[in-house]
């Protein structure tokens, strides 16, 4: 069975956030409230109100499973990538550094 999380982007900085048990928002997936189906509508209404209150942008529900440590894991790849907080590839200086290491190993 899958559970639901509610996610959005933070209005001021645009970063991905998750609805927490306290009704606030966190950048950390581990803080996300795992919402049973029966409580989803109420939680979504709260999230929409937070959108209206200009705190987050466009909240929506996603499916997740909960791992052994109790941490939710999004089901769709898109949401996994969002939850990771960045692309699946290295970027900027880290990308250059990573390729330099590979080159040295090869050469």
């Amino acid at each position: 069975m899958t559970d639901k999380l509610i996610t959005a982007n933070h209005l001021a900085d645009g970063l991905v956030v998750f609805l927490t048990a306290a009704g606030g928002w966190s950048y950390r997936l581990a803080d996300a409230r795992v919402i049973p189906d029966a409580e989803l509508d109420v939680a979504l209404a709260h999230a929409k109100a937070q959108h209206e209150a200009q705190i987050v942008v466009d909240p929506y529900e996603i499916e997740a499973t909960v791992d052994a440590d109790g941490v939710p894991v999004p089901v769709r790849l898109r949401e996994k990538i969002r939850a990771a907080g960045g692309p699946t590839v290295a970027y900027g200086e880290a990308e250059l550094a990573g390729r330099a290491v590979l080159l040295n190993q090869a050469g």
Partner: protein
Amino acid sequence: MYRYDEFDHEFVTARVAQFRDQVGRRVSGELTEDQFKPLRLMNGVYLQLHAYMLRVAVPYGTMNSRQLRMLAHIARKYDRGYGHFTTRQNIQFNWPKLSEIPDALADLASVEMHAIQTSGNCIRNVTADHFAGAAADEVADPRPYAEILRQWSSLHPEFVFLPRKFKVAVTGAERDRAAIQVHDIGLHLKKDENGRLGFAVYIGGGQGRTPMIAKKIRDFLPEEDLLSYSEAILRVYNLNGRRDNKYKARIKILVHETGADEISRQVEEEWERIRHGALKLPQGEVERIREYFAAPATLKALPPSAALAVERARDPEFDAWVERNTHPHHVAGHVSVTISLKAIGSTPGDATAEQMDAVADIAERLAFDEIRVSHEQNLILPHVAEDDLRAIYDGLAAIGLATANAGLVTDIIACPGLDYCALANARSIPVAQRISQRFGAIERQRDIGDLKIKISGCINACGHHHVGHIGILGVEKKGEEFYQISLGGSGDEDAAIGEIIGRGFSTEEIVDAVETLVDTYIAKRESRDETFLAAYRRLGQGPFKEALYGTP
């Protein structure tokens, strides 16, 4: 080079102030997202998968070292130290905070840069051949016309709310390096039998979910009629383009549904009405704007470089780079240089702030202070004396930008895909990186020869997959990434939309599939002079299908 005038300066500064106010009201809660979205889109700001994204225009892809250094500064101060150069000669920053974007725009305005007309349903910033003003094969520099179109379109009250976005591209050579036949309007600058300048006019090309090659509606439009004719096209589109369905709203659909002959008739009719009016370009005006784009005064013909010949003979890697990454210049003793942003295994089109600064320094010291962005996601130094090639190469090599792969199999175009884009179905960048690594050996790449691989993460086709010799489209199938291959596309003068070869491939299979296609080409080509595209057009899908699926 073009300097924008006082009017433009005031316009851009006023726009920054206005947007600062709008962002302030958004962050303080006065504006809702629905109210704010059209405003941010008018200023190049998107909300992407992880964060806001700021798209900055590089008009006609042309900038100087000061401007490139400013892009480096923006990357450092407001982003995470890098930027992504796109197929529309723009740069995208992936991590700006909304509250800081007005400051970033103010910094950009100090070097005459902005994000206007980079998004929304307006006439987008006009793109041009990246070798404009330099290429040996060009009839005349296309950028003055791009600029004239920009001035006309920027504030045109009639065209602020078009049915959909509208993209114009201009080339000044027979060899089309601006992909004009996949634009809403494509202009091919040429001379008639009397030596007068004018344009072949194409309309209704585009990519996205319904790719179309443009139809030529006029073989020769005298240059002084550029604006009246463009206005006639836009007017016919604005009146008749579909606003009921966003997927059918581009001019390509109108041309397709109404027929090119009928649209052309309507355009000509409207044009007859307005062609002798206020939009006729006075000769002095074209000349005045042309001066802004004049080649540097110090660019003088030079004898062939003896030093270059010595270095090429001495260093095969340098020789390979000169062969692939330079292009003939119209002034003797000079070339244009392609700076590949496609190092093996890298993210296509990405550059770090340090790399941007270093390229700016090289351009300032050794390349007449000019830099271009190409629609193939590379940077260009348009004016380089052959004598300076070695120093430029060494400077580029020091920052990892001397890959000798321009136009080769690893010079891949890829959109941001599911790593960044909210609309994506699948990732593009990792596929590009893995293909690049697979074909990394330079001897193998050179043996394969010209081959354009283009990858998009969804059907919007920002990665131009429809016009790739090998096009790759990411789709989602049962929750997994899947990749569909099309073959035989081209965005050049021999434009064509690629044909889907068969069922798609999983992430694990896709690189092998590309290699199978390349190996099949190598086995079947008549000689090394027959390119992948030529071989595909001669052979058809059969042998490639058979190699991939075991059945022709």
